């Protein structure tokens, strides 16, 4: 694994992140980019050194990563990388689809008229931007508001642990993601306007499944590139 000095990417915690969060982010990227492989033991000392921290935040990061499915912990033996294969991506996005479908159903039960209006406005904002960055901003405003209006502390807890497979800005890494998400949210908002929770659930599931297929395509090309770099 490259040392911190070799890498321009800053591993320092971003605002609102703990040191352990930054370590977890670093490990996810290493796995996604194919630099840490399935079955390999997580090199805790190397990671600590790369990020420039002690072993303690690395151990803390492992607890979060285990709950997100990136690693499995075997006592006295360490943490081992789980395969990030097609099935893993499909499963992860299937979970997302269900959790957001749940958010839509609960939001329909719990939203006030004003909140419905707010969400409608945010859906409209999503029809405009074309760049990855503004689209990501508009999308996360819509999704986080939907989750907020669902009014479920449990859902928020679960989503916090359903960390994204794609590090950084999803729409920058997965270009077709914008088209999929834009169409998906338009359909979702129409289902919400029609008070149709079952349709909303199905739309979320379909949308996330489409994302999964795109992510698999991107991952294959990245891992091929990493494999070439190693040889």
């Amino acid at each position, binding site marked *: 694994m490259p040392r911190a000095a070799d890498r321009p990417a800053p591993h320092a915690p971003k605002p609102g992140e703990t040191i*352990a969060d930054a370590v977890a982010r670093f490990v996810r990227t290493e796995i996604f980019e194919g630099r840490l492989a399935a079955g390999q033991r997580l090199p805790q000392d190397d990671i600590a050194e790369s990020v420039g921290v002690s072993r303690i935040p690395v151990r803390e990061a492992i607890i*979060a990563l285990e709950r997100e499915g990136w690693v*499995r912990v075997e006592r006295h033996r360490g943490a081992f990388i*789980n395969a990030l294969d097609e099935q893993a991506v499909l*499963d*992860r996005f299937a979970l997302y689809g*269900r*959790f957001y479908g749940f958010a839509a159903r609960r939001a329909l039960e719990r939203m006030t008229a004003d909140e419905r209006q707010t969400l409608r406005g945010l859906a409209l904002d999503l029809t405009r931007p074309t760049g990855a960055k503004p689209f990501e901003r508009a999308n996360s405003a819509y999704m986080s508001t939907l989750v907020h209006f669902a009014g*479920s502390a449990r859902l928020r807890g679960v989503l916090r*642990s359903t960390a994204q497979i794609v590090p950084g800005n999803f729409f920058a890494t997965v270009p077709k993601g914008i088209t999929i998400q834009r169409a998906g949210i338009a359909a979702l908002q129409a289902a919400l306007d029609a008070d149709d929770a079952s349709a909303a659930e199905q739309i979320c599931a379909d949308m996330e499944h489409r994302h999964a297929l795109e992510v698999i395509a991107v991952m294959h090309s990245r891992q091929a590139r990493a494999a070439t770099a190693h040889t």
Partner: protein
Amino acid sequence: MSTHGRTLPRRLKRESSSEQVAEHIRRLIMSGELVKGERLRQEDLAEELGVSRIPVREAIIALDREGWLDFESNRGAHVAGLAADDIRDHYELRGLVFGLLARRVVETATDEDVKALSALAAEMKRAPDIVEFAVTNERLIRQIVRLAASPRLTAALLVTPAIMHHDFYEFVPTGRKNQEAGVAAFMRALKQRSADGADTAMRTMLRRQGQAVLAAFTASGVVGRE
């Protein structure tokens, strides 16, 4: 209890001290000794349990991920609390995860696997008491998780853990009946190779268990005392 992801990994590996601390904090919340919004005193807990601050901090991170606590590095850890909606939502979410696991089992199970699961389900039904019932049920669920062979879905069970681990069937009188009906419906769907049916069976079972848990918590006063 039952579809009880949490107990599965714990049996496979011995509990670490941070897991023991986490279990202790869960019990404090469930028994109402820690109430919603209360700040967790990490030093006191460490001293009380005779451990260092490190496993306490690790337990807090795990419980934050599981939704029992809200942890922010600058504010400390606060109890998220158990309200009626939390319990309903929790089991609903757990059902969504188990539904996906059930789908995978329909895709992957061989006829031999189905036969083995059937035998376990029959054994569970014959169990003379709730202790044996719980043990057999746990074996059955562990087998389902194994057949699904999905690290991501298995990890999702860690963040939607059973609210109660021990004594579930004593605490929840209708628990056994719900579980048996749910497993029977799942087995029927599995034999017909119906992914939709298996999914629905699991979701329905977990929703019913959530209602039963809520009724039990309401009766004992843990819920609705704020």
